[in-house]
């Protein structure tokens, strides 16, 4: 099976690689997202910041349909994402979306019954049908990029948190994603391990990978993001480049939020 890397996008939306329109999401009576729009252009890095419970994680999880929005639509290359796993009619399937949009989780979620190398090759081999030799070669390259070549045969439970997260990033990159979604990837790490993971992400930013990042690392967000979205109580309250948001916020709520990180 070969994977179409460049599906025909709508010419009108050539800029927008991944787009969320009017996203609402409720869990029972709890309204987590109250109508949010988000556009990711190719090569763009967007940071989502906001207090706990603001809906930023839910929003990023809607972008690869890990959460199915209560209302609103997700578009990839201008095509609407359907509710089915496979492509159906004009709609791109959820499975297709996820093959092109990678995700890294707060709690790593590595496969504990597989070695580091197997974790990274699993997607390409099983989902994309990549020949094993090719998948292994790519995985070893990725593992060396995240500095973990020597751990290829180790099991995840024998790794530190920082190492686990770097493997998780390699696993996501093994799918050669067009977009990478990072959901609080340093929040579960011991403080001294945060740096090594941020260094890996910074290299991906330098490589021009399109990214959405949910993070509490304000300095890092200000440093790597092209655009910052501030969410509060399920809506986007402020949006703009880091200079107008994190560094010099004008919005009162954003100002209060950011000031908590400056000390």
């Amino acid at each position, binding site marked *: 099976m070969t994977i179409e890397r460049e599906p025909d996008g709508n010419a009108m939306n050539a800029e927008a690689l991944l787009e969320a329109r009017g996203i609402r999401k409720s869990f029972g009576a709890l309204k987590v997202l109250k109508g949010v729009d988000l556009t990711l252009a190719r090569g763009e890095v967007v940071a989502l910041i906001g207090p706990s419970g603001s809906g930023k994680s839910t929003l990023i999880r809607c972008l690869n349909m890990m959460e199915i929005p209560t209302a609103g639509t997700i578009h990839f290359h201008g095509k609407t994402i359907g509710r089915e796993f496979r492509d159906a009619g004009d709609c791109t399937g959820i499975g297709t979306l996820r*093959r092109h949009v990678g995700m890294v989780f707060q709690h790593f979620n590595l496969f*504990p019954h597989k*070695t580091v190398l197997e974790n990274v090759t699993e997607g390409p081999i099983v*989902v994309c049908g990549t020949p094993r030799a090719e998948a292994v070669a790519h995985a070893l390259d990725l593992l060396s990029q995240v500095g973990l070549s020597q751990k290829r045969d180790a099991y995840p439970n024998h790794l530190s948190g920082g190492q686990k997260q770097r493997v998780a990033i390699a696993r996501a990159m093994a*799918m050669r994603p067009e977009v990478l979604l990072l959901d609080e990837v340093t929040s579960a790490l011991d403080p001294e391990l945060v740096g090594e993971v941020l260094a890996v992400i910074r290299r991906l930013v330098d490589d021009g990978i399109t990214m959405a990042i949910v993070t509490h690392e304000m300095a890092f967000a200000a440093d790597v993001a092209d655009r910052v979205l501030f969410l509060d109580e399920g809506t986007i309250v402020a949006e703009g480049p880091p200079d107008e948001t994190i560094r010099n916020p004008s919005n009162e709520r954003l100002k209060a939020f950011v000031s908590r990180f400056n000390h």
Partner: protein
Amino acid sequence: MYKWNFDVLWQYWDLFLYGLWLTVVYTAGSIAFGVVIGLITCGARLSGWKSLSFIARLYQEIFRCTPLLVQLLWFYYAFPLLVGVSIDNRVAAMLTLSLYVGAFYAEIFRGGILSIDRGQREAAAAIGMSPMQSMTRIVMPQALKRMLPSFINQSVIQFKNTSLVSVISVADLAYMAAVVNGQTYRPLESYTVMALLYIAVLFPLTQIADLIERRLRVSD
């Protein structure tokens, strides 16, 4: 003091052997059918389809909460009256044993699958796996490892539970021990031999199970 005499039992070795053979057959058969029944029941319970889940639950509770002895008697004597066809005692025995162990297996399977962190399914989904791929490649291998001790345990109990089929005249090891006792008037020896034969089969099996478990633990 009681004087043990095993010598008189030797001439009945073929009865013990045949009984042991039937015990093994009923255990292996009911475990095989039980796994199938357990998987179907577990699937029904986890299907999210309420009526299906309810029926599966009802079956489980009936078979888990009534004595196996009663189930055997019921299937052999009462069930044929209700449906109007007589059932061979061997069929009734195999059917009851399978339904009994299947109800327990279903719970072991369900517990194993539910014990796997939701993040595992999400990680599988995030690299584009279908729900089926996620289940067979990510969830099941981990769940199997966790299920193994309970599964072995239940199967060991099942091996011993088959002794109850003797009440509906299936000539298993317990039945044969009773026959030998009737012939020799040596109950202590007859039932001691029966117990030793159970140990002879089960002890090596539990040791092998331990070994497998240790092998599976390499990734921990």
